[in-house]
């Protein structure tokens, strides 16, 4: 079987995925601020209003609670709305509608009302953004039963996963690593959704033996680079792209850790109560007797996202990840000898 792939950016891949979803199902509707005429501040919805009309690609008033809240109402009528939250830091006004409504209505209605809602959230930093424009709020949603959350790390996944998210009958937070929007890759536009890996499945990005390095979204490319750099030093890292943030694919990660005995987790979000905490705790529960070292977290610090000229001191990068790898391998590094 030959498949012709198309070279396109991450952002274009999402656009193509949204287009497919709009074509496939008349109940799919996009709603958000500036997504229509402008095509979104990141142009992710570029051209879609022109082609599908203002009733399928809806420029909404400036109110996030209402964007999500009206989408919840549309779900009651069998729609599959896709909300765009313009930037990560603007999702909090919609928190109640997400946590008390979208997340709970299927449970509340004993399965009678479906909530096939997708909430697209460009997230993360590393591009010199202003306050509220670089946040990583995924852990809040990980802790919210009833929601699912995913984050693609490459154009192909972006194309497929956005369609899977829309096809999912549960509310899905779709976290787009905005600083990777311009990364290019091959996308199989004919990809068969049914044959694609399920939305909740992590992927082994690169096999390895010495330690398992888990990342998602924007840090997957960084983790891959770290693995390459480590390989130069003779260290073989297994890189896992989580893809699904809720539920976490413990099966894939645990199988890897049982082989490597060591786990490093990296994310941009602040450490305390972040996704890394759950992954570390869950893997420790499942793999305690396999672990040679405590799982190591390489994450943003417990600070508000800092101004652009400080962000390199907050964000995990290649060197900090490698430092974490040293730590998990018990190689001497900056924290060697520290008691806690």
């Amino acid at each position: 079987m030959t498949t012709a792939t198309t070279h396109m950016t991450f952002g274009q891949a999402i656009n193509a995925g949204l287009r497919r979803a709009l074509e496939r199902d008349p109940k799919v509707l996009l709603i958000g601020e500036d997504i229509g005429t402008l095509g979104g501040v990141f142009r992710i919805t570029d051209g879609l209003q022109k082609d599908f009309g203002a009733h399928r690609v809806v420029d909404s008033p400036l109110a996030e609670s209402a964007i999500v809240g009206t989408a919840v109402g549309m779900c009651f009528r069998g729609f599959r709305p896709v909300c765009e939250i313009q930037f990560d830091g603007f999702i909090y006004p919609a928190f109640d509608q997400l946590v008390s409504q979208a997340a709970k209505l299927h449970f509340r209605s004993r399965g009678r009302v479906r909530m096939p809602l997708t909430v697209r959230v460009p997230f993360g930093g590393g591009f010199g953004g202003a306050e509220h424009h670089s946040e990583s709020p995924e852990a809040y949603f990980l802790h919210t039963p009833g929601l699912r959350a995913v984050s693609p790390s490459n154009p192909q996944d972006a194309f497929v996963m956005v369609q899977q998210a829309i096809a999912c009958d549960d509310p899905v937070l779709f976290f787009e690593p905005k600083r990777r929007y311009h990364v290019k890759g091959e996308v199989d536009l004919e990809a068969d959704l049914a044959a694609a890996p399920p939305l909740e499945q992590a992927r082994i990005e690169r096999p390895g033996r010495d330690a398992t390095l888990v990342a998602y979204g924007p840090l997957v490319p960084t983790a891959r680079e770290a693995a390459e750099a480590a390989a130069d030093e003779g260290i073989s890292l297994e890189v896992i792209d989580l893809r699904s943030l809720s539920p976490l694919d413990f099966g894939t990660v645990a199988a890897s850790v049982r082989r490597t005995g060591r786990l490093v987790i990296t994310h941009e979000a602040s450490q305390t109560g972040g996704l890394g905490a759950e992954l570390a705790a869950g893997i420790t529960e499942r793999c305690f007797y396999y672990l040679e070292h405590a799982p190591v977290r390489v994450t943003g610090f417990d600070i508000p996202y800092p101004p652009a000229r400080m962000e390199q001191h907050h964000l995990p990068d290649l060197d900090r990840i490698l430092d974490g790898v040293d730590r998990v391998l018990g190689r001497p590094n900056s924290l060697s000898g520290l008691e806690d």
Partner: protein
Amino acid sequence: MSKPGTGPESGGKSGEPFIQLLTPAGVRVADPHFDQWLADIDGDRLQGLYQDMVTVRRIDLEATALQRQGELALWPPMLGQEAAQIGSGRALAPEDFVFPSYRDTGVAWCRGAEYADLVKVWRGNAPSSWDPYRLNMAPMQIIIGAQTLHATGYAMAAKFEGAETATVTYFGDGATSQGDMNEAMVFAASFQAPVLFFCQNNQWAISEPVRVQAQRPIADRPPGFGIRSLRVDGNDVLACLAATRESLERVRSGAGPCFIEAVTYRMGPHTTADDPTRYRDPNELEDWRTRDPVDRLGAYLQSEGLFGEEFRDQVRAAADAAAAGLREACTSLPEPGGLEVFDHVYSGPHAVLERQKDHYSRYLAGFEAAEGGR
């Protein structure tokens, strides 16, 4: 239009005008505009409205009794709001969709809710009751104001589909302070959504009088958003019926969203857990008793010769049957099983949750084995 009888309950200055078709004494007031919306309300229908109101009042009292007897964990009485709920509820078409609040027992009754549906939640048996798609009515909402956005979104979707259906959302005076309620008006106006906002201004949000929420009558707010608004006597079932019908007609015809403020009164406590003597003047309640919505219609029926003994017997019997039905349905609700907590969190499989369910079922089994062993 006539003036309400009294003061600070109006949500603003006293004596703000509202639509009244039946005076507190039960005298029918002619209204050139709204009377046409009652053309079909003959004696039978009037009696039907009365029977509805008496029945839901009886259901409400029975539920309160069930709570006192420990059969329900909580109950939010709608005593005093029968005209607002029956008047508006009977104006709805079956295909209209309703997004209610927790106190809308009377509306649920009009939508055909079964007895068990009315108490299941309050007994603590289920997180919601009726099938939303059988009643065309969403589960009742507890987060104040949240449902107004759902209604607006539902109406937008209906409009985008080209359907000629109306969506109605019910909420209280307190809800008008919430951001969500105001955002709902913004979206409804912007998309000219076919939604009717029905506010039961029952003068109180738990212990807070409506003046804490609003310095002007609530009905004054929507026009600034570009939404057509009416203020009606919420204890007058005919005014509520006519105004709702008229508004729904506009809504269905594509004229954009409408708003109704029904000026009524919560004659009971906020819920059975509440003690209104801590915060409200008993004279206020006495004053509102003179405007009781049920008595008012009764007086009118009487004056029309429609209040004979046979009818009264029939009403009493219907109310008795409802009370008995409610009690029976309540006490015979099956206890939920232990593993039901894991159901319906997601629409499909979820590995983490299934693991928890598996662990808990092993735990339960082990526990029962141990208990059994003793």
